[in-house]
């Protein structure tokens, strides 16, 4: 079963929930946690683990072969992203802008633009007690999260069986990276805070999940602050709230030290158990 953990925005406690839930679930279940927030993977700060595999990740970009080129200009003309320009007498490629569509390469009449791999980031696979943890990190200056997210999911699918619970800590926002991270998920957990910011961002996230036709439920973090708008809204819209993680300075302090929280705050463990029960019920109910 693939479960994405998402939120309209960063800072709602998505990583805290992902890491604690993953560690807690792994006490009894087969679990792999993926940090798909490839721009800034943070889960690894909370789950140290033993590195068991590491690989560079690439995207394909065209490489200009000067000797073959007749400077016909077709490549510059076909690129919709201005990633390739002709500045006579040269063709220059801007890798961060390239979407690897292959158009320039395949339409070049002289075969002067073969596609070559360029490193965009790194994937690491860790083991921490019984938990498997995969993290991908985009190199600084690389702008395209989507290909790396897709490759990380592929790696996970190839290395873990279907009966593993696959958790995806998704990137924030509602644009391409989140779509990529959640589109294969069987179920999405939306993390929010009971504040106007949290409520506003939750609505955007819900809109996104509805557009993707995803099944989802809500976890309220920092429960006890703010107001009841989130709770009232979920009740009215019949969106299940499967856990409420309390607000406390203690949690903020543990988090700041990079520690897992549930072992030290019993109330958090109780809430994780509620999420676990919900997930196991879904699995029994016929979801993979």
């Amino acid at each position, binding site marked *: 079963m693939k479960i994405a953990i998402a939120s309209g925005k960063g800072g709602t406690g998505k990583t805290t929930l992902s890491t604690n839930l993953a560690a807690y679930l792994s006490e009894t279940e087969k679990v792999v946690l993926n940090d798909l927030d490839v721009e*800034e993977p943070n889960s690894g700060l909370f789950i140290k683990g033993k590195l068991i595999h590491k690989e560079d990740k690439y995207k394909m970009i065209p490489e200009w072969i000067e000797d073959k080129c007749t400077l016909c200009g077709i490549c510059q003309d076909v690129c919709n992203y201005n990633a390739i320009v002709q500045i006579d007498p040269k063709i220059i490629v801007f890798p961060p802008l390239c979407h690897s569509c292959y158009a320039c390469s395949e339409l070049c009449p002289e075969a002067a633009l073969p596609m070559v791999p360029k490193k965009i980031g790194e994937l690491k696979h860790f083991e921490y007690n019984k938990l498997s943890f995969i993290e991908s990190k985009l190199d600084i200056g690389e702008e395209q999260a989507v290909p790396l997210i897709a490759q990380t999911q592929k790696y996970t699918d190839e290395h873990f069986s279907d009966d593993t619970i696959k958790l995806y800590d998704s990137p924030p926002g509602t644009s391409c990276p989140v779509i990529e991270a959640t589109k294969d998920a069987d179920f999405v957990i939306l993390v929010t805070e009971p504040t106007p910011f949290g409520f506003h961002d939750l609505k955007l996230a819900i809109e996104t999940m509805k557009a993707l036709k995803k099944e989802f439920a809500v976890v309220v973090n920092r429960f006890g*602050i703010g107001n009841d708008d989130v709770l009232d809204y979920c009740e009215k819209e019949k969106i299940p709230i499967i856990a409420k993680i309390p607000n406390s300075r203690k949690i903020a302090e543990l988090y700041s030290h990079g520690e897992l929280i549930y072992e030290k705050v019993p109330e958090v463990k109780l809430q994780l158990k509620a999420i676990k029960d919900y997930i196991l019920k879904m699995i029994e109910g016929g979801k993979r």
Partner: protein
Amino acid sequence: MKEIVVISGKGGTGKTSITASFAYLSGKDIVVADCDVDAADMHLLMKPDFKESEDFYSGEIAKIDQDKCTNCGDCANVCRFDAIPVINGEYIVDPLSCEGCGYCARICPVDAITNELQIVGEQYVSTTRVGSKMLHAKLSIGADNSGKLVAKVKDEAKKIAKNNNKDFVLIDGSPGIGCPVVSSITGANFVLLVTEPSVSGLHDLKRVYQIVKKFQIKAGCIINKSDINPKFVKEIKEFLNEEGIVHISNLPYDENFTKAMTIGQTIVEYDKGDLTKILTKSWNKIKGELL
């Protein structure tokens, strides 16, 4: 006219609350822009009137004219994004997967494919409840290219500031370290980094500063929730020293942050104590850095 951009590497550090406080303190004297277009939130505190709006187009999406299509399948073959599945015997473009590269349209033998411009968001020019002009935007779901929208919102803000002789444009920047944040800080005179003293806070600060450094923009830093972890405050300060980043101030962990937000106020309106004093001083210090 000077441009100040507030960023944080990652969400949840209090960036928007702090930016809105500065905007509130300045009243009509500045132009405000919310460039966190993916999930813009500043309007919840500044309550702009959403008066003028304009669609934002960017990128293209392929569309197949079924009357012309001969089902040859060439388009699906060249598409590297698997965006042209066959549905009920017809080649159809899946809008969520199409990257608008235009390759399919170029090779379709019967010209059945056109590229259409896509509406990817809306941008607004508003007046806030404190009388300042505010530029903000909303990105459509699943849209790419937030970088371009950020650039547009910023450009517009600068134009308005120039035309009205305002000294400052204050920008709530984008989260993360990707393309939108680069657009947020391009051309800025000062970058304010908001961070918190935690393992992840320091990590994100260092990462995002690598970008700021590349652009050689003067930077300052506010450490929020500073009393939660003195050890990291020390580490952050060391980092600021090494990099020549101005330490603007420390803000204590204070539930007034959330309480103010909950009733739609900025901190400097709600809090009658230390937070407001520190924020007022911070804002003056930042402006001072730019004189």
